[in-house]
């Protein structure tokens, strides 16, 4: 692959990525949004997060698999419990990753 192509892509991506983030942020912050639009936007974060959790936990890597035989669902439960009781993002993330590694090795032994 030519270095020219690579650099065109790098510069173009930088410009586009900044534009799609900056323009809405700075334009919308200057106008008074109609109430229904504001309410709709207030529901966007939880919707995004629900969709992200569902696809990451139940369809990891964009591939269907049985959630009961893989580590993701159980590791997510561990993550949720740790967060529920500690309110710590770091603690919950690390606990989730650790339980994922353990389950990755332990589940095949348990289920076989």
């Amino acid at each position, binding site marked *: 692959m030519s*270095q020219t*192509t*690579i650099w065109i*892509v*790098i*510069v*173009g*991506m*930088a410009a*586009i*990525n*900044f534009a*799609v*983030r*900056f*323009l*809405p*942020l*700075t*334009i*919308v*912050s200057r106008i008074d949004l109609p109430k*229904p639009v*504001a309410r*709709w*936007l*207030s*529901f*966007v974060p*939880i*919707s*995004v*997060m*629900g*969709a*992200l*959790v*569902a*696809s*990451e*936990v139940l369809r*990891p890597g964009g591939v269907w698999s049985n959630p009961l035989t893989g*580590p993701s669902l159980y*590791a*997510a439960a561990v*993550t*949720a419990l740790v*967060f*529920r009781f500690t*309110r710590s*993002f*770091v603690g*919950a*993330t*690390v606990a*989730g*990753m650790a339980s*994922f*590694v353990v389950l*990755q090795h332990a589940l095949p032994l348990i289920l076989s």
Partner: protein
Amino acid sequence: MLSSDVSTHPHIEDRAAGAALHGAPVARFRRGLALGFPIFLGYMPVGMAFGILARTMGFSVFAAVVCSATALAGAGQFIALSFLAAGAGPVGVLIATTVVNLRYVLFASTLSTYLRDTPTATHAALAFSLTDETFAVNVADHRQGLATPASMAGVGAVAWTGWVLGTLIGAVGAGWIGDPSRFGVGFAMAAMFTALFLALAEDWRHVVIGVVAGAIVLGLPLLGAVGLRLEPSWYLVIAAMLAASIGAVVWREG
């Protein structure tokens, strides 16, 4: 804790947060660094994966690091690599990454409602570091009444550092690192999203909307069975917009 009292009575849980609320911008920035640390943990390994992959695609170490440092677009960068690998020209690659990153229009519009009296230069800095993860952390922080532009900048800085540092390590060590998945990094993002979901769920309406979004995002790939094939990067945007619309229609008041 799926309680609504977090938003209605923003009780400060620890002294650090209390100091940050009334403290100097530097203290708020440092609080943001701490808040964003899980993002750092999640980005490092994914950044490494990008660095390794970019090197195998003919990127120099410098090019891989500059790409991560200026684009800060996880999925967008991986898609650029896969399009390049498939022989697409620069225009095709740029269109593909733009489509994947259109969700930021949605995120930026939501975030802008917290940044009404903020100078344009600050908008630029915060827009630059806007990702799925920084967005979620800042929204959760805002719900507690604690987010300020300085704390958001801290979250963005630590996330950016994790992504760029990970890319550098991956690009330099491409030959001998091997598969980073053995450290459980495949689950880092999923774990963070799970915790963030709980943090964002203010009350039962939010839980319902989140579950609806999850159901839609899992249902969309099934449309392929009836011949309606969508680009996978659209699943998230469509699911989020639909679920938020359903919420906004069902709960018109409040």
